[in-house]
């Protein structure tokens, strides 16, 4: 956890507007609360073990199954 009001320079650095905003390894981002499979996928994306497209597909599948 990093509390944005106390660390505005970091909030600026990572362009935090809405919270929560998760930053993984500096350049992979996740907006808002997210289900566990999506968080795991974003970690894999940051590690270079999943592509952004694969993560987007997962996100779409999760959204669809939630409806």
């Amino acid at each position, binding site marked *: 956890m990093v509390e944005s*009001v*106390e*660390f505005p320079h970091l909030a600026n650095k990572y362009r935090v507007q809405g*919270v929560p905003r998760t930053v993984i390894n*500096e350049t992979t981002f996740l907006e808002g609360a997210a289900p566990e499979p999506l968080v*795991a996928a974003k970690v894999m994306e940051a*590690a270079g*073990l999943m592509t952004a497209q694969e993560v987007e597909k997962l996100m779409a599948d999760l959204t669809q199954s939630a409806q």
Partner: protein
Amino acid sequence: MPLLSDKDRAFLVDHLEGALVGAVRILFFTQSMACQFCKETEAILGELADLSDKISLSVYDFVADKAVADEYAVDKIPATVVMSDVDHGVRFYGIPSGYEFTSLVEAVVDVSKGTTDLSAETLASLAQLKDPIHMQVYVTPT
């Protein structure tokens, strides 16, 4: 005046008694001046540590105890480290107020159990990781 209401305190004492397994160490890094919520954070952590004998709190001065801060890679304050006898890399930077207090309590529980509720699928994915992953969750006070 305590921050937790009697009702909340009673609930948490009960919750933690049922949930905690091993001892949890909370390391708090602070300083007396030029720190927006250091005092309030220390008060919150003091009340948290009071909720169970399994939780201990150590308070360090960011400047005077720089060697300890460096050991835990703490580079900004207020900083809260939640660990068992192992450092799992759990850090709360800034005041853990509002909803984040719940996150802090659940971090204490997870660290105490040494396990999480992550699914088998997630664990299988994470087992493939070779390099360190740094996750920062930016929040605002509630």
